[in-house]
Each structure stands twice: as structure tokens, then as C-alpha cells.
């Protein structure tokens, strides 16, 4: 048995069913061994695509996604996707080939220090120096990637280690004395949370992506149902409470819902759960620190006090904390006056549907109809830009796994491969990739992957002939000096483009065509693209800043 065989056995024993990857000389022994195993592989068209696929797969299947690339350029092509996974705490194992041990450091052909290159955005990484380490390292990698605050782990295999004969030995036991996993959260701290809630006049719960990582959706829903506490979320926390639920008041942040930001500002107690209170989320938020307002609960102690100083910090797994908190709040409900105030704000600021100019579809209308027609029983991925925020604010999101987006890193090119990964992870629900015409072109070669493996991703392309989000930014902050944002001249005929891959499409330009188009797309058994003409002056949404919402349509 070779080192590569052993690595594959270790992957199998960690439950791996599918690997996304791209070959080269350095990972060739590994790929050879996969062919003799129970593991299935998907060949992407770029290593970045493979890693985003693994990331999408991981979110849906709630396990570590695995991707592989060869040494040098193969490995560096993974980088953006590894960083994307790191920022959103997605469990992932990246397996790279490396040059032979003796050549390391010699600037050998296709040699790169991938461990050094990815150091700031991997949870951990390994250079395997000996076949006898393989079992232990692979087991440790899965343990690290999936426990605590999840994240990507990279394993770099020199080619000769993969080829070496394994004669038994080395052991498979995890040995990580420096890995500090949290035990049960401190009960006394949680009691303080309960006490604070009981005297609060305007409490809210802010859910972040950590709630999903922790698998605490059920517990949070029970908590909100029992107490009626109004819930807001970050982008990564969308779906923790269904976004059409009475208890949910919207996504906060610079591109969040206006009502949510106002409610957040008016509240007198914020229970932030599993969120790093990132700059885009709390950009418009005043007076969180200092006042006895912020309670921060997170499994990662380094998140507490990093961006904001809470007055009650709780380090712990959200699920455990919530389970302890629920009985302490027995009989308590959120003040009725506050709920009435929040309801009134929601009523006042929920944007009414506006018709689009002729020749264009309103993306907001489209997304509302898409949720209604599908009952949101889908996995929805987004790209980055206006398309992403239209989805976040207008598509009804029922579960956090149902909404896959690059929240922390904002990576264009994420959505299409992530949808392929989501589709490989399950076949019960359709996967819909909502894309901007700019982002789509970042990873469009993955259409080939989709075709080759008959992966039935439904694509929705918002064609505004612009890098819309930046276009809007230039309108707002650069006096409408539109530069480097017009892609019209070079955009392909998207219908012909997908046709070249054997993928069917339909193009629409009026709201009246929306329902039929959605039905046609869903009725098709294979991948399908809806090309939707959207005005380049369609605003992203409402923001807390009044100035920002006057994006005048048809300004040009």
C-alpha cells in the first residue's frame, strides 16, 4: 500500500464520499488511489471552482468538504476559495500535492510554499513529511475542521510521500494538546443573560452564522417562540428564523433592511449570537458599546471584545448556551410594547413592490415570486453584488443551509461552483444559483463541470450589463463617474453561450413574464438558465442612510 492509498483510506474512514478537484503531477498518485476507492470525484475547470464546490457541499451536507489540487499553480488557484471558506467558518479539507521532499526549498518546478501562503486563512495546515504520519494527520485535520469554530484545513503531500510504501505503524490517534475546545458554557454567565433580559425594555436577538455552525437552529426557534423576542440577523444568520416569520425583523448592516437597523438602534439590549459583529453588519449601529447593551455569545473567545466590548461576554457553543438559557427564562416574554413598536416599524418600512421600467424586470419582484412559487423549498446560492443583496432582502429564506452566499469575503465567482457542490450533496431540493453578469463570468467555465456530470443547477442571471454594485457605489460616492464597471461591450450572448454547453435558457424583460419563466425553469429536469434583463440603475435596496436610497433610475 502507498501513502496515497493510506490517505484515501483515511478519507473514507472520515466519511468522505465526494472529492472536488483538478489533477497534476504532484497529486496524481492521490487521484490514482481515489480511482480504487469508494470515493467519487468531480473534475472542476479551475481549482478555485473545486474548492468553492467543496465549500457549498459542506454547507448543505453539514460535513467537511474535500478538494484537491496539484502543487504550485494548482495550489495557488485554491487560495481565494480557502479564504472564502475561512471567513464564513466553513469546514473544508484542501489536499495539495507538493514537490518531492528533497526538492522542497529548491524552487523546483511547480513548487510553492502553499502552507505559508495560506497561513493567515486556514484554521490549521500540515506538511506531511512521512507516510507514518498520514493517518494521524488526516484524522486531526477532520477533527479540527469540523469542531469548535469550523474552518478550512490544508494538507500538503509531497509526491514522494504519496508514493512511499506504507508498511504499517505510525498510529491514527489524534494528538492535539494545543487545541482548546470549549466545554459547557459557564452557567453563571448565562444566568446574567437571563437577568438582563428580564429587566430589558427593548431586547432583541441578533443571529449570526455561528447559530448554523452550532446546529442550534431548533433551539433558537424554541427560544424565540417561547419568549417572543424580536430577531434580527446578519447575512450569514439569514434563515435561522424563517425570514417571513413574525419574530423576524430583517437583516442588519450597511445593505440590510432599514427597519432592522432602526430596530437595532432603538433596542436597549442586544443578544448577539455567533456573529463577529463585522464592520458591514454594524456599520450603522450607534451606542452598542459602553452602555449596558451588548451581550455577546460566541464559541470563539477571540471574537468577544475583538470588534466590540460586550458588557456580558459568554464563551460557548450557541446550542449549549441556548439550551441552558431556555429554562432560565421560563414564563418570561418580551415586553408587548416593544413588540408593537417593532411591528409598527416593520409595517412602515417594508418596501412595497415597485414596478420595473418597461424592458426590465424588477429583481425584487422576481425573487419574491421565486420564493412563492418554490415555497423556498430550494437551496439558493448567490454571487456577490446587487444580485446577492436582492436575494438577502427579498427571497424568503427558511433555513440557514438553504442560503449559500459568500458573506465574510464577498467572493465573486462563489455562487456557481457552490451550487454545483450543493447539488452533489443532495438531490431532494432544486439548487438555484442567482448570479450577476459580472460574477458569472468569473467562474463560467464551471458550466462544463455542470454539463459533464449532469448536475441540474438552475441558474438565474441578472443581466444589468454592469458590475452593478460598484456602479451604484460610483453613483453615490464618485459623483457618477462610472469607470471600469461597464461590461456591456464584451458580454457574450448568454443564451448562445449556455447553448454551446448544451444548456437551455430563456430571456425575459418584463415582470409579466416572470411566473411562466420560473415554472419553465423548474419543470426542466436539467440545468437551465433564466436570463433576466434588469435596469443598470436598479437600486440595491434601502439603507439606514437616507442619502443612499435616492439612486435615480435612468439617470444617464
Amino acid at each position: 500500500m502507498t501513502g496515497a492509498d493510506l490517505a484515501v483510506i483515511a478519507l473514507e474512514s472520515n466519511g468522505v464520499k465526494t472529492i472536488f478537484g483538478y489533477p497534476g503531477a504532484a497529486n496524481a498518485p492521490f487521484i490514482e488511489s481515489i480511482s480504487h476507492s469508494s470515493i467519487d470525484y468531480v473534475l472542476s475547470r479551475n481549482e478555485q471552482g473545486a474548492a468553492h464546490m467543496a465549500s457549498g457541499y459542506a454547507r448543505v451536507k453539514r460535513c467537511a468538504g474535500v478538494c484537491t489540487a496539484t502543487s504550485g499553480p494548482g495550489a495557488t488557484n485554491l487560495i481565494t476559495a480557502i479564504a472564502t471558506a475561512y471567513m464564513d467558518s466553513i469546514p473544508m479539507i484542501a489536499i495539495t500535492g507538493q514537490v518531492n521532499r528533497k526538492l522542497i526549498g529548491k524552487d523546483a518546478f511547480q513548487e510553492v510554499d502553499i502552507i505559508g501562503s495560506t497561513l493567515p486563512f486556514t484554521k490549521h495546515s500540515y506538511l506531511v513529511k512521512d507516510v507514518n504520519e498520514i493517518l494521524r494527520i488526516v484524522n486531526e485535520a477532520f477533527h479540527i475542521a469540523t469542531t469548535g469554530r469550523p474552518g478550512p484545513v490544508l494538507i500538503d503531500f509531497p509526491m514522494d510521500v504519496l508514493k512511499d510504501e506504507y508498511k504499517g505503524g505510525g498510529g491514527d490517534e489524534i494528538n492535539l494538546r494545543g487545541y482548546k475546545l470549549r466545554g459547557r458554557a459557564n452557567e453563571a454567565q448565562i444566568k446574567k443573560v437571563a437577568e438582563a433580559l428580564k429587566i430589558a425594555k427593548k431586547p432583541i436577538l441578533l443571529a449570526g452564522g455561528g447559530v448554523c455552525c452550532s446546529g442550534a437552529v431548533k433551539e433558537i426557534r424554541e427560544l424565540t417562540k417561547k419568549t417572543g423576542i424580536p430577531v434580527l440577523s446578519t447575512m450569514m444568520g439569514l434563515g435561522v428564523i424563517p425570514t417571513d416569520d413574525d419574530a423576524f425583523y430583517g437583516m442588519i448592516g450597511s445593505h440590510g433592511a432599514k427597519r432592522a437597523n432602526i430596530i437595532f438602534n432603538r433596542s436597549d439590549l442586544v443578544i448577539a449570537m455567533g456573529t463577529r459583529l463585522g464592520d458591514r453588519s454594524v456599520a450603522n449601529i450607534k451606542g452598542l458599546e459602553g452602555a449596558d447593551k451588548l451581550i455577546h455569545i460566541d464559541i470563539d473567545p477571540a471574537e468577544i471584545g475583538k470588534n466590540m466590548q460586550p458588557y456580558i461576554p459568554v464563551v460557548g457553543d450557541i446550542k449549549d448556551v441556548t439550551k441552558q438559557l431556555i429554562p432560565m427564562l421560563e414564563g418570561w416574554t418580551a415586553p408587548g410594547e416593544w413588540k408593537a413598536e417593532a411591528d409598527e416599524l416593520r409595517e412602515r418600512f417594508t418596501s412595497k413592490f415597485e414596478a420595473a421600467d418597461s424592458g426590465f424586470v424588477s429583481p425584487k419582484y422576481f425573487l419574491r415570486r421565486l420564493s412563492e412559487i418554490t415555497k423556498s423549498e430550494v437551496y439558493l446560492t448567490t454571487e456577490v453584488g446587487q444580485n446577492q443583496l436582492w436575494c438577502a432582502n427579498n427571497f424568503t429564506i427558511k433555513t440557514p443551509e438553504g442560503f449559500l452566499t459568500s458573506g465574510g469575503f464577498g467572493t465573486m465567482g462563489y455562487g456557481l461552483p457552490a451550487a454545483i457542490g450543493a447539488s452533489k450533496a443532495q438531490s431532494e431540493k432544486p439548487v438555484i444559483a442567482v448570479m450577476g453578469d459580472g460574477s458569472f463570468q468569473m467562474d463560467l467555465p464551471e458550466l462544463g463541470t455542470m454539463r459533464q456530470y449532469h448536475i441540474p443547477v438552475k441558474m438565474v442571471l441578472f443581466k444589468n450589463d454592469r458590475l452593478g454594485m460598484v456602479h451604484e457605489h460610483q453613483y453615490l460616492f464618485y459623483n457618477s463617474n462610472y469607470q471600469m464597471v461597464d461590461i456591456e461591450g464584451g458580454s457574450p450572448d448568454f443564451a448562445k453561450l449556455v447553448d454551446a454547453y448544451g444548456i437551455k435558457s430563456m430571456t425575459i424583460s418584463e415582470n409579466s413574464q416572470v411566473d411562466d419563466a420560473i415554472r419553465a425553469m423548474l419543470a426542466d429536469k436539467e440545468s437551465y438558465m433564466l436570463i433576466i434583463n434588469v435596469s443598470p440603475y436598479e437600486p440595491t435596496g434601502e439603507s439606514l442612510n437616507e442619502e443612499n436610497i435616492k439612486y435615480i433610475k435612468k439617470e444617464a
Partner: protein
Amino acid sequence: MEKYTLSVLVENHAGVLSRVVGLFTRRGFNIHQLSVGPTVDENISRITIEVKGDVYMVEQVSKQLSKIMEVIKIKTLKDQEMVKRGLVLVKIKSHPKNRGEIIEIANVFRANVVDISPTTITAEVTGSDQKLDAFLKMVESYGIEEIARTGMTALERGANTLKLDK
């Protein structure tokens, strides 16, 4: 800004130091001084890091360092709780006429003269930062040719040790 000293036990693996140092760069923390060496347990090294900053920063540094897999234990030490020492080797310009004078200064500081040439004297001093600074200040007027100075290393006073959790 205050000075804080972090005593960090790490796995004695290749690449651990770059993880530790890389974290400072990436998070925008400044390392004031650093020293590394083995411990009684050959599998473990001790890194002593002196940082300048506020309480908030030191807390962040310590929490972020804890997340590195190979970091086993961290303790932030306050000045009065520890013995902290550094070493400086200094090559001082000298000629036969002022040699005696320089050696006298060295004696006051309990510095060792470790090398002499017709035009230089090399002295070795250990002690606190203040002591090293004071010595250098005293010999400055003769002309300093070269200095090699280590980062501070430190141990907690009293019977306490930085033990591993069992």
C-alpha cells in the same frame, strides 16, 4: 501604551514560530521583543514575547495566539510578578589609555569583558532592559561599534510554573 510580557509554551515543531510571528503581522500587533528557547521537556519550546499596547490589545493577542494549534499554554505576566532578563553584547571603541576606565564601568554593571582587541573592548551584560540601557548609555561616549541584543526572557517569581493541563 504599556509593556506586557507573554510567556508562551509551544510544540517544538518546524514552522511554529512563523505561525506565531505571522499572526502579529496579520492582526496588526507589534512585537517589541521576542526570544525563543527549549524547555525541560524537549518537545516544548518557550517563546517570550514583549508587546506594547493596551489591555484590549494584549487580550486579543493572547486569545488569537491560543487559537494556533501548536500553542499549548499562554500566560501574561506583569512586571512585578516576574524575573525578566536580556543580554547584550557590545563592542566599544577603545585604546590602551581608556581601557581601564571602560573595564571599571563594566565592573559596576557586573558586565563581563569577553574580548579585547587593540581598538575595541567587547562586553557582555545581562539584566533588565533598564540596566542594559543604562550600561549602553555609560559607554556610548567612547563610541559603540556594534551591538547584539537578545529579546527579554522571563520566568514568573515564586513557586508557580507554566504547567500543562493534564
